[in-house]
């Protein structure tokens, strides 16, 4: 029986078990409402098939995927480790810059060309809409949450509230809510962007100052509560926010500089470019922050708050800063989607959306700006595709089961995400090797 303890065998068994669990979880389409023909006293296999283990052919699909993953990780473990372990010492600074500059510029150039050409490649309006609404907006949301969760290490389960604030500020300022606009003066949609972003940041600060003294789990619950309050507020205040219907007529963006006038109109392509500019802007800003004193302070607080304080870092200040900066891109995402879709309602901002954003961050790699963007593109495109083409009898109701299974598998094999941030990866590595330097062992200063 000793061979069962071999890591490879253990892993194989765990993959088969995960496959079985996922198959059971996802079940046969429609089974939840259709009772089995022979009732609960039927034959064993019929009962089993009621739960979908044999009734659906999808277990074959899952098992194949699982075995492929197993084969891949087996080969990876077999041939990669000696190479991987040695890359621990980073090359000297000037050398690193040279290597980076050339390869990076090439990468950026290719990426920019592809991104600019996308409206010419994707000609269907429907898919262009999807790219902006389902991918672009969600990249913004994920990048913002990444600042809070990935950089500062604060679990925010109510991030969607900032999205809602951005969207509702847009509607309010443009005068399409029952509440009269600010100072009874309607502002063109485009000029709402800075105001909505600032509003989201201000709310971030207001929420942050009292709550960010809390640690870990408590903060997660407070932010969850905040999101529920915002959701209920916009859903119930018919006289102010339009209640369940929200607003159906948020005007499209328009820019008017006197000599030059531009109207965004109904097509998605102009919005795509607007979105692209802002995604790039936020990504640049967040990258600059990550490698500045602010970013280093976030890492310090995330890793060891007591040690960070001992060198003069004010944890509350930097946490509030993370909240406000993260809220900025969430607020902008709200403006963008309000302007693009033209209608907003409370269902867009339910707390499920917070979890979805968090999934994108975890999937892409917490703390990794490129990873999060890539993760958002990947997950959002696949979900949109699945929803529209429904391959293998896929149903949108089952979506979260698949995403859940995906996350379980991710956490087993790639805990730091699709494209891990270098800092996060090191953190996990050092924790696994020494058991030191992890988030939650602050204040365990023992006295001797």
């Amino acid at each position: 029986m000793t061979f069962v303890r071999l890591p490879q065998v253990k892993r194989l068994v765990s993959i088969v078990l995960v496959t079985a669990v996922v198959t059971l979880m996802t079940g046969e389409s429609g089974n939840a409402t259709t009772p089995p023909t022979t009732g609960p006293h039927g034959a064993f296999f019929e009962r089993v098939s009621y739960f979908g283990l044999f009734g659906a052919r999808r277990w074959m699909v899952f098992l194949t995927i699982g075995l492929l993953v197993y084969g891949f990780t087996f080969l990876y473990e077999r041939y990669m480790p000696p190479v991987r372990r040695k890359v621990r010492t980073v090359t000297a600074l000037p050398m690193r810059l040279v290597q980076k500059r050339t390869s990076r510029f090439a990468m950026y150039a290719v990426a920019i060309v592809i991104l600019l050409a996308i409206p010419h490649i994707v000609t269907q309006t429907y898919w262009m809409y999807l790219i902006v609404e389902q991918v672009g907006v969600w990249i913004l949301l994920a990048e913002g949450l990444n600042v809070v969760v990935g950089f500062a290490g604060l679990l925010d389960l109510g991030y969607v509230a900032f999205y809602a604030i951005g969207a509702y500020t847009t509607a309010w300022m443009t005068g399409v809510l029952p509440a009269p606009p600010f100072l009874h003066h309607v502002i063109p949609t485009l000029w709402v962007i800075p105001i909505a972003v600032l509003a989201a940041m201000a709310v971030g600060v207001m929420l942050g100052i009292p709550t960010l003294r809390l640690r870990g789990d408590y903060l997660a619950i407070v932010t969850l509560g905040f999101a529920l309050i915002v959701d209920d507020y916009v859903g119930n205040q018919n006289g102010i926010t339009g209640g369940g219907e929200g607003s159906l007529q948020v005007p499209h963006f328009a820019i008017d500089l006197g000599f030059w006038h531009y109207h965004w109109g109904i097509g998605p392509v102009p919005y795509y470019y607007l979105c692209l500019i802002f995604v790039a802007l936020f990504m640049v800003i967040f990258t600059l922050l990550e490698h500045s004193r602010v970013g280093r302070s976030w890492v310090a607080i995330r890793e060891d708050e007591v040690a960070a304080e001992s060198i003069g870092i004010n944890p509350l200040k930097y946490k509030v800063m993370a909240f406000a900066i993260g809220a900025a891109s969430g607020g902008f995402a709200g403006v963008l989607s309000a302007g693009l879709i033209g209608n907003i309602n409370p269902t867009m901002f339910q707390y499920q959306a917070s979890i979805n954003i968090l999934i994108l961050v975890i999937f892409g790699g917490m703390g990794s700006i490129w990873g999060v963007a890539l993760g958002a593109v990947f997950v959002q495109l696949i979900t949109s595709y699945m929803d529209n083409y429904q391959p293998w009898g896929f149903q949108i109701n089952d979506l979260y089961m698949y995403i859940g299974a995906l996350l379980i598998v991710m956490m087993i094999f790639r805990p730091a995400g699709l494209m891990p941030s270098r800092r996060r990866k090191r953190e996990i590595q050092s924790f696994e090797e020494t058991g030191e330097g992890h988030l939650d062992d602050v204040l365990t200063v023992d006295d001797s």
Partner: protein
Amino acid sequence: MSVETAVQSETIFDVKNITLRFGGVVSLRDVSLHMKRGEILAVIGPNGAGKTSLFNSLTGVYEPQEGHIDFTDRHGRTISVIGKKTHRIARAGVSRTFQASRVFSALTVFENVKIGAESHAGIGAVGAIVRGPATRRGERVSDDLTLELLDFVGLRKDANLIASALSYGGRRRLEIARAIATDPDVILLDEPAAGTNPSEKLELAALIRRVRDERSISVLLIEHDMKLVMSLAERIYVLNFGGVLAEGTPAEIRANQSVVEAYLGTSTTEEKG
């Protein structure tokens, strides 16, 4: 060294009758301590005597219920420590290391020290985004200081290594560099030699002496290694059961009968065995 004797008389820490309780447990009982600028002061005592509690009280991690702690910086400004937040006390000039080394393991050795070095540079989020001349100057100053301190503790060659890749002794030195980088008046070292080998201990003792002599930072240290304490400290406080048992020069402490009974007797035999 006439300048040093001139400032020697100055007080840096004035602890008066502090008592620290956790529920019914008394961790520090009526402790008074006086530390002069420029001295190397050691706090010794058996396990559970309250040494780390004293450190945590001095740095604002714990708040003693009774007593006063006054800290005076090099400009003669005196602040009351109790009730102040840790980061404010750190900014005022009190820096520390921890018993179990607490380097930021996700950052490189260089970045670890740089965080300390830039704690006084006024770089905010806006500065980091705009990267104007002031920000760049601040970055350059803290980069220079960081490299200087890495040289000082002998970690320059490991600057780009991930902090967790350092040896135990290396992490100790990194922590000291990070603490010095904040430009403190006094540095509190919590068992700096714990877990290091004899040759590392010698280097460490030399380093601690250089911290005081070359960077004129006063040193307050907790240490179990008697040889190190006796050779390094100029004055020693002995804590036992949360109270001060004795105070004096190493020679006086060695001769003190109650100290020998309470602590040194057992410890020195352990040291020999």
